[in-house]
């Protein structure tokens, strides 16, 4: 009997808007077990798809994180390191000029370096 039914034709006659108007969303949500749903989601996989660097760069989030972990010693360290890196770049640019090879920034990283290694 089911096979004799034209399901598509049947669905064409159903007013889905009218059906949805009768659905109590709150009641529906109450019946959903969110804990169980979340258990089935691989959050690590979701996080992998987020461009954290872009997020930090484009929002105040980075500044908030940075401000919370910054101290006087850390500031001095940042300045010392930045100045030294500046000197690295200065030397590398001049070496590039002498070799007539345009300097495009520090080379690397090594092939098998783990993300975040060394920090």
């Amino acid at each position: 009997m089911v096979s004799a039914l034209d399901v598509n034709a049947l669905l064409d006659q159903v007013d889905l808007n009218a059906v949805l108007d009768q659905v109590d969303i709150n009641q529906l949500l109450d019946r959903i077990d969110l804990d169980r749903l979340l258990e089935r989601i691989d959050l690590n996989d979701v996080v992998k798809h987020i461009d954290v660097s872009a997020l930090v760069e484009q929002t105040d989030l980075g500044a908030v994180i940075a401000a919370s972990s910054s101290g006087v010693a850390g500031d001095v360290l940042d300045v010392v390191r930045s100045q030294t890196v500046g000197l690295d770049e200065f030397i590398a640019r001049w070496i590039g000029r002498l070799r007539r090879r345009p300097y495009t920034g520090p080379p690397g990283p090594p092939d098998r370096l783990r993300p975040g290694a060394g920090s």
Partner: protein
Amino acid sequence: MTARAGDAPPSGPPAVVRESLQGKYAGFASRFTAFAVDVGVSLGVFMLALAAVSFAALVLTGKDITWHKGDIWVIIAYAVWAFIYFAYSWAASGRTAGMALFGVRVVTDDGTDASARRAVVRTLALPLSFLFLGLGFVGILLGDRRRALHDVIAGTAVIYSWDARAARLRFLSRG
């Protein structure tokens, strides 16, 4: 002669570094200054140890021991201490005190953590880089992977281990 933009070494705040350098091969200045700090630290600790030995000898035996820097035993003792200082630091964490200060670290040439064996080989090969007026260090300036002779021998490289972009954000957050 006029200075062109970009020629002068930056004198400003951390904002000069706009990208995270983490993992990139470290340059000559960072490596040299880190090494200079390490020489200072290792010498300072060694001299403190000699002073402690002298004091202990004076208290226990009443004899006053004086050390001369040309004394062969002092030189040998310093060589052994310097070997332990560098080899242990590189084997344990990939960085010495000076390298930690300047945010660089030793890894294998493919980027994995340096083993104890490589750390020992690197330490033993380090003096070779000083031969012929420091010719072994030219690779840091000219090489594609900025490796000195002792890096090539030990199969290691030195990378930046600090996040320059985070430093910039910290600077911006203060502003």
